[in-house]
């Protein structure tokens, strides 16, 4: 068996398996109808509603950690939820691979489980796909306190409903994610960063124009009077495209600072709430008070504004998008659902979590 493992690639079995203890905790919570607050590294605790029921108990995934299987040739890695995201990224980087969706950490203690439960993706998302796009399978503890397996470790799998992707971004409200299998990809051989000064209108026009061409773009932001561009691809195309598009060189650290909200724009001392506005491609600038930073070639806009949630959401919804508040406690963080959608969300929650023990109220007040 050892020989097999060496022959077929890297197998890593590190960390600890706490699934049995976690299942037991869930069974006790179900029996006592005690709500559970699912925690990892706590770096995304700000994201979502802050209402925790008084009788809630914390259930921590941090000790359930380790990469259980990684075979670079298969482009698949399986990781326990409590594994630090930085550990996973380092293991992938050692093989020249990465999670293309570039998830934000928001702190050194970020875990893989938190990444998947929040479903947040970084600047490469419009070109690479989102966190859920790279989720191939999950292990999840359901309300009966049993670990269930959905999806798997293969690229294509359409057996049964796609509960793995349903769990992604559900913020732990449908079950506890204990392990995730991801598709991973090689890092591009060549990278370049460009900064081109221009007006916002010109930048948006360029985004649309370039979007229709097969260019090696994997990051496009408008900030501080300049279009910021990242090119990733082959050793031939990237330098050639950089020369053709011109502009100044941009340090690669910009994309990390943007992803991690470390740019001055995101200064936590700013008293105005921070909003994430998600819009269709090619949406013109919206008449919103405050300061904006355009990422995802204009499809994700960060807004610092004192605008009321209702006004903002009315404008954004009309443009085909939605707005999420990143400053905890100021308002409902997520755009309210339509009546029919809310009804089916509620029914789904009730079916998968009949006692309402998993992170109740984290997404919406009703569930």
């Amino acid at each position, binding site marked *: 068996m050892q020989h097999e493992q060496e022959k077929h690639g890297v197998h890593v079995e590190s960390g600890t398996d706490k699934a049995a203890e976690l299942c037991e905790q869930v069974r006790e919570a179900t029996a006592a109808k005690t709500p559970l607050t699912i925690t990892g590294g706590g770096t995304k605790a700000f994201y979502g509603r802050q209402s925790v029921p008084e009788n809630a108990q914390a259930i921590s995934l941090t000790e359930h950690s380790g990469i259980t299987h990684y075979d670079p040739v298969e482009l698949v890695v399986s990781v326990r939820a409590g594994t630090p995201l930085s550990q996973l990224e380092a293991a992938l980087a050692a093989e020249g691979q990465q999670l293309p969706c570039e998830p934000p950490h928001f702190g050194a203690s970020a875990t893989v489980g938190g990444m998947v439960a929040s479903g947040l993706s970084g600047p490469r998302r419009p070109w690479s796909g989102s966190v859920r796009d790279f989720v191939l399978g999950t292990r999840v503890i359901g309300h009966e306190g049993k670990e269930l397996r959905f999806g798997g470790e293969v*690229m*294509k799998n359409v*057996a049964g*409903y796609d509960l793995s*992707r349903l769990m992604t971004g559900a913020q732990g409200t449908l079950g506890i994610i204990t392990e995730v299998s991801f598709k991973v990809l090689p890092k591009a051989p060549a990278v370049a960063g460009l900064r081109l000064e221009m007006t916002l209108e010109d930048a948006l026009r360029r985004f649309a124009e370039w979007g229709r061409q097969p260019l090696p773009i994997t990051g496009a932001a408008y900030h501080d009077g300049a279009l910021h561009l990242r090119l990733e691809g082959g050793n031939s195309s990237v330098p050639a495209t950089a020369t053709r598009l011109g502009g100044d060189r941009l340090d690669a650290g910009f994309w990390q600072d943007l992803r991690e909200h470390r740019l001055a724009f995101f200064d936590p001392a700013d008293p105005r709430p921070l909003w994430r506005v998600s819009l269709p491609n090619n949406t013109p600038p919206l008449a919103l008070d405050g300061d904006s930073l355009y990422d995802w070639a204009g499809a994700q806009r960060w807004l610092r504004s004192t605008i009321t949630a209702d006004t903002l959401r009315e404008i954004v919804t009309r443009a085909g998008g939605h707005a999420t508040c990143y400053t905890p406690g100021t308002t409902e963080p997520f755009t309210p659902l339509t009546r029919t959608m809310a009804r089916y969300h509620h029914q789904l929650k009730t079916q998968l979590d009949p006692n309402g023990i998993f992170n109740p109220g984290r997404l919406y007040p009703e569930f």
Partner: protein
Amino acid sequence: MNILYDERLDGALALNDKASVLDRLQTSVPDMKLLHREEDLRPFECDGLSAYRVLPMLVAMPDTLEQIENLMRVCFEMGVPVVTRGAGTGLSGGALPLEQGVLLVMSRFSRILDVDPDARTAKVQPGVRNLAISEAAAPYNLYYAPDPSSQIACSIGGNVAENAGGVHCLKYGLTVHNVLKVNVITIEGERMTLGSDAFDAPGFDLLALFTGSEGMLGVITEVTVKLLPKPEVAKVLMASFDDIEKAGKAVGDIIAAGIIPGGLEMMDNLAIRAAEDFIRAGYPVEAEAILLCELDGVEADVDDDCQTVRDVLRKAGATDIQLARDDAERAKFWAGRKNAFPAVGRMSPDYYCMDGTIPKRALPSVLKGIAALSEEHGLPVANVFHAGDGNMHPLILFDANKPGELELAEKVGGKILELCVEAGGAITGEHGVGREKINQMCVQFKPDELTSFHAVKAAFDSRGLLNPGKNIPTLQRCAEFGAMHVHHGKLPHPDLPRF
């Protein structure tokens, strides 16, 4: 074990007599086309899995959303099952009708509503053919990436319902990666929008949940897809091997070299000979296996990658490597592959196509297992393989006119899928479970997992009327299947009651 709907195992269906359902629908949805005479129903008795045929009670062919809403309300109230059908090209019996059910045919929803080149999206009705989207986007130098081999005929609604794949999935993803928004109508006749025109939407990812749900959660009425800029160039290398294991290893070597091909396909000798006989694609008929490796992107990068892949293939022991000289030859290389199924169909009165997926490292052992099954049961198997993403399509050759051969082919097919599950893979990569693989779902999933699927179904369809019996087996079915199917001396679900 017969796969036709069996109320004893799959759940009781409401007893409605045809005349009263017809009468009620004619009154409630007066302007909707309804077929009810046997000769009119006959063309709808099967989908692409033509070994199984059931005459539906009625066929509804609406052309407005209001008609669908009203149809659903009536069916919900009367407890009439609804099976939705697109182009009917599905290979797993996902649109197999029910005797007591209405077959909802979406073919009249065939308009492309909008192509927005600057947002790189196309908004289409579900009956639009897959290829028609790329054709409509072509003037803008854009295309829709997923390309199932049936793309000239299959419709986008069916693609979403099945989470269809194709030969470019490793690099460009499946349907779920290429759809932004889907409008649905629920069994209770409500309209809902899943996803959005933006990259995400508030709430649960119901778009992902509905994609591949085989028409069991709602009826798809509109689809907005992402369009991609056409790659500047695409080049195809064809490598011949005198040993299929060497070809399998070469696949891993290409990935290990850091290259993600646009397409990476493998065919074995039987499939090569069938395709060559049919298409004259220029395949080497003496080779034990060929690999087709398509590299696409910016020209300079593609040229670099072609060189790298050539070196990898040579080292892996390829006996011959050809680069398609031009687009015409590239199309010819692909035509052989895309027509592999009908080509094999010409060699044998019937064939049965499997769709298992495996980790690439398991390829040699699974191929050996398939060869042993083929030998043991005396049915030839041709292998066509989306090698890049581990999706196998063994084609089992048989003659349905010979007594017992269909059953034998199904038995071999079922065993092949179990090999895939044992190797860490899945019973279906892109064709769906439908009715065809309903029993193998009992091998893939444990009862608690199946129970979660039934819970999801109940959240959207409390009366179980949308495409009942497909995709997710009942625990009763699994218990009976398990009782008949002792594997390695172990029952799959020893904890379930037997009856």
